[in-house]
């Protein structure tokens, strides 16, 4: 039997010995038997007992050390609690003093800083942005701007007109002569004038050039071209 097999066999027998399932008579190999006997001998005799006095001394030392350690743990805990409480009171006192501080006091800049920071944090821009919000906002803003621009333009124009009126008060329109009136041109469809001269009615365009003469006066219309009724009458 080679060494490796013996190693495994010895281990198996030792396992059985620990479980009290093996008698040495069952083992045939003499070398393994002698090794098993040595193992049993070692198990029985290896344990050393120190003097009882030494045991007692070590035990007392151990218990004292344990108590000291527990005490230190409590002390450490108490220290942490005290420090935490002191820190809390200090911090709350400082907070109250800051809140009540007036301009000129040492803590006032801190109060201002905190107020600014608070305002900064409460800004709407920090709120979560919904989907498409930017686009809508931009559109709304664009509309608003256009309308505002229009309004501003109107205002500006109105002001200018007012000023102009102040500087150059409106002159009353010259009343058209009784014999002259506006009417639609028959031939061109443009506005023209009819003037009476020496019993003839001369039809002129807007440029004043005559293009026709009639001896019969033209029919008057119901339209009043901004003139009084009496003024609108054409004298024959």
């Amino acid at each position: 039997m080679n060494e490796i097999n013996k190693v495994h066999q010895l281990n198996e027998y030792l396992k059985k010995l620990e479980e009290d399932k093996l008698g040495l008579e069952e083992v045939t190999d003499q070398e393994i038997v002698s090794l098993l006997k040595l193992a049993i001998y070692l198990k029985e005799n290896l344990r050393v007992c120190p003097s009882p006095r030494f045991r007692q001394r070590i035990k007392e030392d151990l218990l004292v050390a344990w108590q000291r350690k527990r005490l230190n743990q409590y002390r450490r805990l108490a220290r942490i609690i005290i420090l935490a409480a002191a820190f809390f009171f200090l911090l709350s006192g400082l907070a109250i003093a800051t809140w009540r501080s007036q301009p000129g006091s040492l803590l006032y800049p801190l109060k201002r800083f905190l107020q600014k920071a608070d305002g900064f944090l409460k800004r709407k821009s920090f709120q979560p942005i919904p989907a498409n919000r930017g686009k809508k906002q931009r559109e709304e803003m664009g509309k608003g701007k256009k309308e505002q621009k229009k309004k501003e333009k109107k205002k500006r124009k109105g002001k200018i007109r007012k000023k102009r009126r102040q500087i150059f008060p409106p002159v009353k329109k010259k009343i058209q002569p009784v014999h002259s009136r506006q009417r639609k041109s028959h031939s061109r469809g443009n506005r023209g004038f009819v003037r009476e001269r020496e019993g003839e009615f001369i039809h002129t365009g807007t440029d004043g050039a005559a293009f026709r003469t009639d001896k019969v006066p033209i029919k008057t219309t119901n339209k009043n071209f901004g003139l009084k009724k009496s003024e609108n009458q054409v004298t024959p």
Partner: protein
Amino acid sequence: MGKPLLPDEELKKLAIRAKREKKALAELFDSLFDSIYSFFFYRVSKPEEAEDLTQAFFLKMIEALGGYRPSEVPFMAWCQKIARNLLIDHYRQTKTFYPPEVISQLPNGRAQKEIELEEKRAVLYKALKTLSVDYQEVILLRFLLGFSVKETAEIMERSVNAVKLLQFRALKAMRKILGEESE
């Protein structure tokens, strides 16, 4: 004579209770003391050194007990780590290995049986001291502290097969030394 080593589950429960209860700590001490002392006794050259190391071990154990969380690893393996670290520190400081002085330490006026037992231990001590460090460790872990092969492998940071082989060779070497002495 101290109390025998308790099963692992009970040791774990005691260790958790020992964080708060003084009584549990005393029980844990009673159960561990002989095994730990014996382990140090065979690994150092003088009994006084073993006593110092035992004391240091229990003080360290109290400190480390606060962070102890029970796991699959046996409680004795956790203790063994502390003991091994202490031993390494001790070897670094002393750098010397004295011949055993166990027989000279025997107190007078003891019963014949006790004296015979002490003599046996002295012989064992001498035999163990002549073995290599690995052989010593595997014998102490397996037959003094009662670790399984798997646990011993974890503590020694070796494979299971390597520990089996070490155990076989250590026993063989021990038998040879003891046989020579008896002759």
